[in-house]
């Protein structure tokens, strides 16, 4: 038990330690090896997660509660908790952070120490958010995540990045107001915001004013998390912020932040209020709207990163749709899609970074024919696109299949059909992207473009390999799920 506890504590302590190391030693030295430090943190997160998965599975535990600093204070409450869902989220955080570091090595030239500090606070925020046991602490870490993201976006102080940042801040503040008001009303009726207390006390109080305040608080919390997740019609900030940030930061934002800040909160909410029909309906409605509108908007974009950002909106819709079922299978499907989305979305952003590094532009109209000049980038983007569109045997196919199965078994065949048909849009906008960027004639100013080298190329290859490999091995996961009686 002790080892597991130490492994679990690394999720918060290692980034802290990294911040200390980063600021104690001389700035010159840290700028030279910033990628080593951050890469080590990301890797330690990945390995700690894998270890926790392994040892929890070996001991047959489905949740592990622990409490940091227990030597200092006596307490009967455990503050943190690891569950399988949490662990998958933590794994995604580790992977995406690692990808971001590998890209940052190439793309970030100045303010490296600040990047490291903010990345670490972002990781602390996300790790804390998924591990805490209390709704208010979740809000606190949500704001940690939000604040780190604001500063990360605005870090280089170009016109665009400041603009994206300020839009994100203001809309996030709106979300914060919503969430906090909702929490206040929730707290008003329960006297505690601990998940366990919420679970046990809410079912008893059901007199008239209480339920009105309760549904009000649910509406507000749900809307707040929708804003954070970038679901249509709360999505408008997302493409602006993701487009304007440096690519290594866009990877973090699109790959993991919207999922932790938005989807995980909604997951907690659906978990606590699994009996409320209206939440499920709202999730399904917003999910379908996001899928369709996001895809339509992605189809009209001319900026590479903006298109990928809208694709994120569309994919968030799928996850919301999976959560709307309220079944265990739905949660599994959502988590699987979070994982596969983290993989393919980071691949696409890495491609964006490669193209930006080599060709110097991200406007799709100015590109063309990069297929022969950047074969690795082209190939990895094709794999990521196929995974997004749900072509077997890649990861995206399986997670989409699980979502559709979950919808079907929950008795929503119409939604399943719509989700299936919307895949056509996904293929459409990615085909358009492929055609504009990689096929066709090479314009003259791109004649001397070469394949990207170094860390970006390596990470492209690694991500492509993982996407394919996990896709091929996914039937094992299905067998595992079946043995647990989920399928």
């Amino acid at each position, binding site marked *: 038990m002790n080892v597991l506890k130490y492994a679990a504590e690394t999720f918060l302590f290692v980034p802290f330690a990294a911040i200390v190391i980063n600021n104690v030693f001389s700035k010159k030295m840290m700028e030279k090896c910033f990628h080593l430090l951050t890469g080590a943190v990301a890797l330690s997160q990945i390995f700690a997660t894998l270890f926790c998965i392994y040892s929890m599975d070996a001991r047959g535990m489905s949740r592990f509660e622990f409490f940091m600093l227990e030597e200092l204070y006596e307490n009967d409450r455990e503050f943190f908790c690891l569950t399988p869902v949490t662990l998958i989220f933590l794994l995604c955080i580790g992977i995406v952070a690692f990808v971001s570091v590998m890209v940052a090595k190439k793309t970030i030239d100045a303010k490296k120490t600040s990047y490291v500090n903010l990345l670490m606070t972002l990781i602390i925020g996300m790790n804390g958010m998924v591990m805490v046991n209390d709704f208010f*602490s979740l809000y606190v870490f949500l704001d940690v995540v939000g604040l780190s993201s604001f500063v990360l976006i605005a*870090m280089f102080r170009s016109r665009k990045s400041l603009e994206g940042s300020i839009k994100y801040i203001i809309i996030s503040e709106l979300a914060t107001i919503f969430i906090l008001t909702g929490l206040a009303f929730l707290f008003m009726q329960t006297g505690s915001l601990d998940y366990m207390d919420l679970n046990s006390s809410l079912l008893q109080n059901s007199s008239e004013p209480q339920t009105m305040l309760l549904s009000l608080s649910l509406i507000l919390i749900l809307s707040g998390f929708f804003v954070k997740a970038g679901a249509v019609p709360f999505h408008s900030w997302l493409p602006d912020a993701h487009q304007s940030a440096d690519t290594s930061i866009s990877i973090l934002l699109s790959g993991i932040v919207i999922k932790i800040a938005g989807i995980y909160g909604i997951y907690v909410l659906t978990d606590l209020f699994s009996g409320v029909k209206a939440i499920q309906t709202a999730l399904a409605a917003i999910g379908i709207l996001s899928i369709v509108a996001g895809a339509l908007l992605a189809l009209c974009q001319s900026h590479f990163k903006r298109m990928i950002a809208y694709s994120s909106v569309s994919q968030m819709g799928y996850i919301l749709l999976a959560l709307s079922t309220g079944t265990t299978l739905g949660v599994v499907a959502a988590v699987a899609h979070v994982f596969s989305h983290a993989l393919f979305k980071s691949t696409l952003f890495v491609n964006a970074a490669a193209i930006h590094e080599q060709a110097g532009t991200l406007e799709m109209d100015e590109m063309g024919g990069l297929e022969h000049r950047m074969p690795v980038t082209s190939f990895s983007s094709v794999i990521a696109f196929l995974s997004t569109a749900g072509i077997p045997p890649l990861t995206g196919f399986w997670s989409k299949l699980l979502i559709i199965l979950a919808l079907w078994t929950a008795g929503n065949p119409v939604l399943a059909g719509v989700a299936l048909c919307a895949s056509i849009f996904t293929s459409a906008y990615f085909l358009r992207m492929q055609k504009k960027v990689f096929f066709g004639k090479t314009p003259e100013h791109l004649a001397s473009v070469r394949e990207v080298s170094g860390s970006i190329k390596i990470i492209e290859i690694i991500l492509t390999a993982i996407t394919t490999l996990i896709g091929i091995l996914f039937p094992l996961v299905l067998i595992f799920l079946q043995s647990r009686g989920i399928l």
Partner: protein
Amino acid sequence: MNTILSISLACLLVFCILSIMSHSLLKSAIFLALASAMLGVLMYMMGAVWAAVIEVSACSGLVTVIFISAISLSNIKKDDIHKQYEDKKRMRWFPITMIVGGILLIVIALAKDFTLTSALQQTTDHFKEVFWNTRQVDIMGQIVTILIGGIAVFVLFREEQENK
């Protein structure tokens, strides 16, 4: 007690509205600080002593200082601001909105027969234990938040090297 509460509540609302309505940014910030102070009084009256202290010192003090320094950085003439931002025109519907919203809320409260009452037993003397023992996670979050604040000052306010 109810009288003081009601008066300070009314003051809070009035100060908030004034801070939004006033066309000078400086006045806005000052009204906001006053509203904050009123909220502190309100909290004190309700028994939340610690929160009241923090509210008055942090919100009323620190935030106002931040605002005023930001306002002083952008010293534009008052008339220009009026012309440029069309505040009068834009805020034309604000009082009406407030009145309509207030009436609507009162009507809802009447229609739903909505009423709230305080719990009879109030526990207000264990704040330290509660704050330091059961909210350690929040404190950790606060520390990180303050850290981010420091980094933000470092990143966003510092002049860039190239500019010099």
